[in-house]
């Protein structure tokens, strides 16, 4: 999860609540990276790893808890009860020349991508592989779908409301037609019409929701999918078998 200044515009309480939520995500094997601007000491302490950058170079990279000892070792001890974030920011703004240069962190040679040629950079391809198995992905996605449905009761109510309205209309037009004498052709024709109209209503009512919702949900899927590389048709076929089982169960 990449976030660009997620605490911007939030008060200190909400900023802290948000970062606490991100730490919960991080504790569940999600990588959370975010930029942040002037965090409070409480918020700052919630981060595990921090990178301070100045003019495109890494000023500090490492655990938040090690900032004080790191700078104490370099003869710049952080005052007691002082926000380490403010301390590092002040340090990199107030120092200059060799004193500042001495504090920059060295970049290991193997990480110096900028020294590679454009041709070499062009072939650098990041390959993502999912850390979760099929069952976990399915459980998470199903949970998300369910939460999404529950969060939008208005859509569900509208769908059921339209169903009720349409069927009241049909019910009034075909009032108790099924109970009338089928021997009379007018009754029989109306009875057939009732069955037809009910099924036409079913197909109309049920195609719309997926059709209209899907284009809005698709970008999210494409983003998630594009970080994967495995496009296995056999899994699509496997899911078809699963659906066959589900349908059989529903029929029973």
């Amino acid at each position, binding site marked *: 999860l990449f976030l660009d200044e997620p605490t911007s515009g939030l008060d200190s309480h909400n900023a802290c609540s948000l970062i606490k939520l991100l730490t919960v995500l991080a504790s569940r094997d999600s990588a959370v990276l975010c930029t942040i601007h002037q965090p409070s000491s409480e918020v700052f302490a919630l981060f595990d790893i921090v990178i301070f950058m100045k003019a495109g170079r890494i000023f500090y990279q490492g655990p938040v808890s090690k900032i004080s000892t790191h700078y104490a070792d370099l003869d710049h001890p952080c005052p007691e009860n002082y926000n380490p974030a403010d301390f590092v920011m002040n340090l990199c703004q107030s120092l200059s020349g060799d004193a500042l240069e001495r504090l920059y962190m060295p970049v290991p040679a193997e990480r110096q991508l900028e020294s590679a040629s454009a041709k070499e950079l062009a072939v650098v391809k990041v390959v993502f592989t999912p850390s979760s198995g099929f069952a976990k992905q399915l459980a998470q*996605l199903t949970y998300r*779908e369910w939460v999404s449905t529950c969060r939008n009761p208005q859509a569900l109510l509208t769908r059921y409301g339209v169903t009720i309205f349409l069927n009241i209309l049909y019910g009034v037009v075909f009032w108790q037609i099924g109970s009338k004498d089928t*021997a009379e052709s007018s009754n029989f024709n109306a009875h057939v019409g009732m069955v037809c109209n009910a099924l036409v209503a079913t197909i109309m009512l*049920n195609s719309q929701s997926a059709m209209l919702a*899907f284009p809005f949900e698709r970008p999210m899927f494409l983003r998630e999918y594009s970080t994967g590389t495995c496009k296995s048709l056999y899994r699509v076929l496997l899911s078809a078998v*699963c*659906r066959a089982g589900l349908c059989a169960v529903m029929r029973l």
Partner: protein
Amino acid sequence: VHTDDVTPYMISKLVAELPTTLVQCLLQYMMVKLMSGLQADFFQFVTVAFGLALVANSYGMMLGAAIPDVKDVVEAWVPLFAPQILFTGLFTRIRQIPVFLRWAQYLSAMSYALKLGYYLEFNPNQEHCMASEEAGQNCAGLLTSGGPTGEPVLWWVNVLCLFGLFMVARVLAAVALTKQAARHG
């Protein structure tokens, strides 16, 4: 959620839509039963409607997966769904449709569901069909070659065909998503 193929996504969509669609079908046919006096077994009819609803949902998903703009999806809905009704034989008998177009009836989910609906509602064993000789003739006529659908009803063939259309639409939706995701990546 980091996903490496379309399958969990498609299954999760299906699992989420199963209860909402089932409730919608129960609600609809409860009203049909109470107000219009549906004679067929309620749960059997709801099962047919539920099957049709899932196919309709799959068609909707297929359009939504293949076409990015919701306005274009709405435009594409008409040519996909209008023939569903045209090829049921409701307004014209199948044998009156030009021979070179008759194959399209086999793509109509509505046609299969309607045959099943007729089978349940106008089965000669239904009480209203056994009330008199004329009633029996009307019911039998609908289910045989004289009926608007033009063919005798084999209920399990229609169930299989509905299921086949459901599968084809879902797989096509999955393929459309996969292709676009590959381009997106």
